[in-house]
């Protein structure tokens, strides 16, 4: 039993989790019955296909578009690549490159014997799994050697649009004390149905997520990690129309964290919900296997809705994200559930409510590396007051034992942070967190007081909402606008044309290869050296982890893709 500073009604937590399971069960058939264009492109990438054609179209897109037009995608692209491998005696990458160049016609590949296909493809797929696992173990060695920071880990963003300029900014931020660097993506990359290629120096509001950019930043951060004697983590965005592809290239380039939410794209980017639910499963499996910590995007609910009145929607979404993440093989320690400090600063006792909610999240999700987002909505351009609000946020973060603290920047609402803005933000966080480091150990909240009441009020509302969603189904709930006040039609939004029904004999070698390891009780990626979640007293709780593994191995639908 975990001792928490704030008491939440555990029977309500149980009810919430039960409803979340029911909600996830409801979309499970959809996930199991379909594949998508981006999932098939991911398979090609994992089989070693990379590059672009003369027109700049990524080769995975070239092949998958052709396969879809020819009506072959329902078999799984791996089946057709594998058939060609059997007939031609070449590697998967060689076959794929020949198809992309037009030297081998997809339609002319003869279907080969299923077991021969599986044998040919699996050998190569296992090699990629071994490579990704190798990168995970490499991270674990670096963590063992260099991970000296203590939570809350200081997370900052860079967003110049130019990967080389990003490196300058990220390096400077790391030297100032940042533990985690997120490279913000170019505006609207989430709506591109392909992953751009190569190093990029032009972006709007951020830098394109490409495999080359991932590699450039990873190398730079590895260098600065050694220089600072602190492992600096790299984050990118596994969201939008290419969720699993980004997960795959991130796994290959040893990214440490991915923003990866089961509903964000639907609500905030108008991506079709079926597409998103199908994609999130495979993307999260890859993240799980790569030892990536995912960050969910519940903070977004509060950028438009009122943070006090809609706090329960954040919690409800956390339960759903948690359940869907567990079903993809992620360990609780890999599920960085998001929430935010966004109440109106003019509100009397606002800090009490913020802290109550932060403590509530900590108590309900003791193993989650919670991601805490700073005030943005009520930042006005008054940088002096903004700096104070950020300090209050940092204080709530350190008291309540958040794991990932996206530090607020005083110039929020004005521009993407200058070098000095980030320095001041990090200085603020380090000052407050050092100065109040163990305050959380010294306090408990008055039972029945304002804060305990607030936590239970939010939980009660979240349970009611989850039970209602469970009753009508997640897709209907979203179409009725129950999340973030945004209504989305199951047949609307972007990317539905990329959803393809699987045929009998559909083949994708990776889910089984990943899940074999992910569902074993021994799978426990080392994610941090310090205890990442102060409330749980450790980054790894064998009992909880084993429980999850057992559940994944036996739970209904838990292993389907």
């Amino acid at each position, binding site marked *: 039993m975990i001792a928490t500073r704030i008491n939440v009604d555990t029977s309500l937590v149980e009810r919430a989790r039960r409803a979340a399971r029911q909600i996830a069960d409801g979309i499970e058939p959809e996930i199991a019955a379909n594949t998508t264009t981006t999932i098939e492109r991911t398979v090609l990438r994992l089989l070693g296909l990379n590059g672009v054609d003369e027109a700049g179209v990524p080769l995975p897109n070239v092949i998958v578009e052709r396969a879809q037009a020819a009506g072959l995608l329902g078999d799984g692209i791996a089946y057709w690549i594998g058939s060609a491998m059997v007939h031609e005696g070449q590697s998967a990458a060689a076959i794929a490159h020949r198809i992309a160049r037009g030297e081998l016609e997809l339609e002319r590949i003869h279907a080969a014997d299923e077991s021969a296909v599986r044998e040919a493809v699996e050998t190569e797929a296992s090699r990629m799994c071994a490579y990704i696992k190798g990168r995970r173990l490499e991270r674990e060695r670096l963590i063992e050697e260099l991970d000296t920071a203590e939570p809350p880990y200081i997370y900052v963003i860079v967003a110049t649009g130019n990967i080389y300029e990003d490196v300058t900014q990220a390096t400077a*931020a790391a030297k100032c004390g940042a533990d985690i660097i997120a490279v913000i993506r170019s505006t*609207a990359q989430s709506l591109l149905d392909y992953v751009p290629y190569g190093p990029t120096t032009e972006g709007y509001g951020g830098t394109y997520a490409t495999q080359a950019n991932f590699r450039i930043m990873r190398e730079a951060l590895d260098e600065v990690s050694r220089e600072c004697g602190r492992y600096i983590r790299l984050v990118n965005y596994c969201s939008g129309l290419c969720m699993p592809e980004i997960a795959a290239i991130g796994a290959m380039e040893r990214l440490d964290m991915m923003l990866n939410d089961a509903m964000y794209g639907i609500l905030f*980017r108008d991506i079709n919900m079926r597409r998103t639910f199908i994609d999130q499963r495979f993307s999260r499996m890859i993240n799980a296997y790569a030892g990536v910590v995912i960050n969910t995007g519940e903070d977004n609910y509060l950028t*438009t809705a009122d943070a006090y009145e809609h706090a329960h929607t954040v919690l409800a979404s956390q339960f759903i994200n948690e359940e869907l993440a567990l079903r993809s093989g992620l360990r609780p320690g890999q599920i960085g559930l998001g929430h935010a400090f966004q109440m109106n600063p003019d509100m009397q006792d606002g800090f009490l409510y913020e802290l109550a909610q932060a403590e509530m999240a900590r108590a309900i999700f003791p193993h989650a590396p919670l991601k805490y987002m700073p005030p943005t909505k009520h930042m006005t351009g008054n940088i002096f007051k903004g700096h104070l609000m950020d300090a209050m946020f940092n204080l709530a973060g350190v008291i309540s034992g958040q794991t990932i603290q996206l530090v607020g920047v005083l110039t929020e609402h004005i521009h993407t942070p200058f070098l000095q803005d980030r320095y001041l933000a990090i200085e603020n966080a380090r000052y407050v967190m050092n100065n109040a480091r163990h305050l959380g150990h010294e306090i408990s909240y008055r039972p029945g007081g304002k804060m305990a009441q607030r936590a239970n009020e939010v939980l009660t509302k979240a349970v009611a909402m989850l039970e209602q969603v469970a009753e009508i189904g997640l897709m209907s709930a979203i179409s009725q606008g129950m999340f973030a006040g945004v209504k989305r039609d199951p047949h609307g939004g972007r990317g539905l044309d990329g959803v393809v029904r699987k045929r009998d004999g559909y083949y994708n070698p990776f889910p089984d290869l990943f899940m074999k390891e992910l569902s074993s009780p021994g799978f426990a990626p080392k994610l941090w050296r310090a205890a990442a979640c102060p409330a749980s007293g450790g980054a790894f709780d064998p009992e909880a982890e084993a429980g999850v593994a057992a559940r994944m191995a036996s739970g209904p639908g838990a292993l389907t893709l």
Partner: protein
Amino acid sequence: MRREVWVAVSTVKVDRSRVRPYGDTIDDGWIQMSFTLPVSCGPEATRAAQLLCEKMGLDDVRVVYSHDIAGSFTFFVIYGRCVHSVDLTTIEVPKVNMKHMTFDEINDFIKTRIGRKIVVVAACTGTDAHTVGIDAIINMKGYAGEYGLERYPWFEAYNLGSQVPNEALVAKAIEVGADAILVSQVVTQRNIHIDNLTHLAELVEAEGLRDRVLLIVGGPRISHELAVELGYDAGFGPGTVPSHVGAFIAQELARRMGTWTPSEGPRSEGT
């Protein structure tokens, strides 16, 4: 004692033709600023910051704080007295020409002066994904304690959301017979908003709508001056609430219809 200080300050005569920053004495010129130089911290860096400030027109420059950032940058906090002044009497700033009205006043005004609902289409166009601005003005819930235009019984408002192509916004305007098109632009990196706004204005022109609709832009980096320069009827910057936009649309439409002139004041008869 405190009272005496207050009186002393409040009776100071400001020369509006020579306005300078105020620290604690009229005309002292004190300002504060902070910036970073891409050089390592040390006496030379501090001197460089001081010289730079002198070039910017500061006297008595005081580098009160300097701090190393990552070994190759230095952050400074500086005070200095500005030698320049400005002549306030010659300044003219283009402002949105409208009179403030409340929610009820606007609805009443539309009812009596326009006589039908005003149709408004709104979107955050181009690649911009930030709906905060447009949502604040349009959505039922509104912003800063004010209801959005959706809540106004005499407005029919369509919020198309974010990342809407300009073409789609214009098509919607035609479809619903919009009186006003509202476009929000939040991302302004590399002046992407200028290109996008110019494109929208050209589209509206090309569709022959320009004389029939009010074209309005809003966003944190938008001024009325910029909007007019780009061919818009009005631009709304930070601090705008729904009633500002609503009042402008109602008054401007009534003015064009000839049912109202600004000299009448915002109130309709009988209120």
